[in-house]
């Protein structure tokens, strides 16, 4: 199965992003994605290790060694005559990974979260620089004094008196409710 490992959009400028977007057969060898390295031939039954589709179309090992073949013969008999190692070997013939191996955490989330926080931090720096070097000075209507006079004026002209700002002012006591 093909997995896109482009990770974060901001990684567009990184090797990881460029490679993943340009060719879906390239696997970056990180966080457990370094296994398959070639294009899958979709015209024949495939093997896969997936939690949600448990039974692949074919067993893992196509070509069996002589030892494997004799084990498969023994499997046709009663199973309690198989030793634990033989059972494990039979499993490994049919399947590549066990459920425990498939479910193993990769720690990829740490890379993702790290990337997110890094770029948020970088954006914060850009925003600070903008505020200092780019933005014009505030209009005088944003001064504390003007804002206070503005609120007083809104209350005097009964702006939104039903549920809004004037409804929250106690006109008798001259204070907020």
């Amino acid at each position: 199965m093909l997995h896109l490992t482009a990770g974060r959009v901001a990684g567009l400028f990184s090797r990881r992003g460029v490679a993943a977007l340009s060719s879906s057969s390239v696997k970056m060898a990180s966080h457990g994605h370094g296994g398959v390295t070639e294009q899958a031939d979709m015209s024949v039954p495939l093997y896969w290790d997936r939690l949600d589709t448990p039974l692949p179309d074919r067993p893992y090992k196509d070509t069996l060694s002589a030892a494997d073949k004799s084990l498969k013969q023994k499997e046709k008999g009663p199973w309690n005559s198989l030793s634990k190692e033989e059972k494990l070997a039979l499993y490994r013939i049919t399947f590549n990974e066990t459920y425990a191996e498939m479910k193993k955490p990769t720690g990829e989330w740490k890379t993702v979260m790290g990337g997110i926080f890094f770029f948020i931090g970088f954006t914060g720096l850009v925003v600070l620089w903008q505020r200092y070097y780019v933005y014009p000075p505030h209009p005088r209507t944003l001064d504390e004094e003007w804002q206070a006079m503005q609120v007083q004026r809104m209350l005097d002209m009964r702006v939104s008196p039903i549920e809004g700002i004037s409804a929250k002012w106690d006109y008798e006591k001259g204070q907020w409710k």
Partner: protein
Amino acid sequence: MAHPTQLGFQDAASPVMEELLHFHDHALMIVLLISTLVLYIITAMVSTKLTNKYILDSQEIEIVWTILPAVILVLIALPSLRILYLMDEINDPHLTIKAMGHQWYWSYEYTDYENLGFDSYMIPTQDLTPGQFRLLETDHRMVVPMESPVRVLVSAEDVLHSWAVPSLGVKMDAVPGRLNQTAFIASRPGVFYGQCSEICGANHSFMPIVVEAVPLEHFENWSSLMLEDA
């Protein structure tokens, strides 16, 4: 007008706006319920331990999630259409005002009895008196009698504009060469602010609308004064 950081609607100053507020509450509640449901389903699907997730078919749930959305849509459509037709009812206005959009000011004409006309320019920030609202105040306000149906004929002299006053629940495009009609009743006295709502050039953000609803005697005094000044 809205107070700083206000997110919701301004209080209604006309019956139509009250209806719109209630409808918005209704529709938003439906939207919030559906969004919560979807968010829950997404989290449930992402965090499930089950491996067999590919159910091939199920007639019952398919029927449910076809019929239920149709019912929800009807529940939204009925109040919506009701308000739509309400807004179009014959309203027998007491007063007709023409609001003409220019680059970049509005002009109002009260021609029912006399010929009263004036321009309404935004007061620039440097000319504001302390406490006035930046980008919202105008030198002349459109004064109307309160609790009276008022018809506004909206048009434009140059490019597209739009005459909008949110607390009255009014917005009507000003199209050059076309006369658009809208109407409102100001349920309470007050000053109601709006801004041009169709991009019209460099100063599109700087041609606000101010409607002042006053008792009838005050309106009559005002119009006499305005006629003298003209």
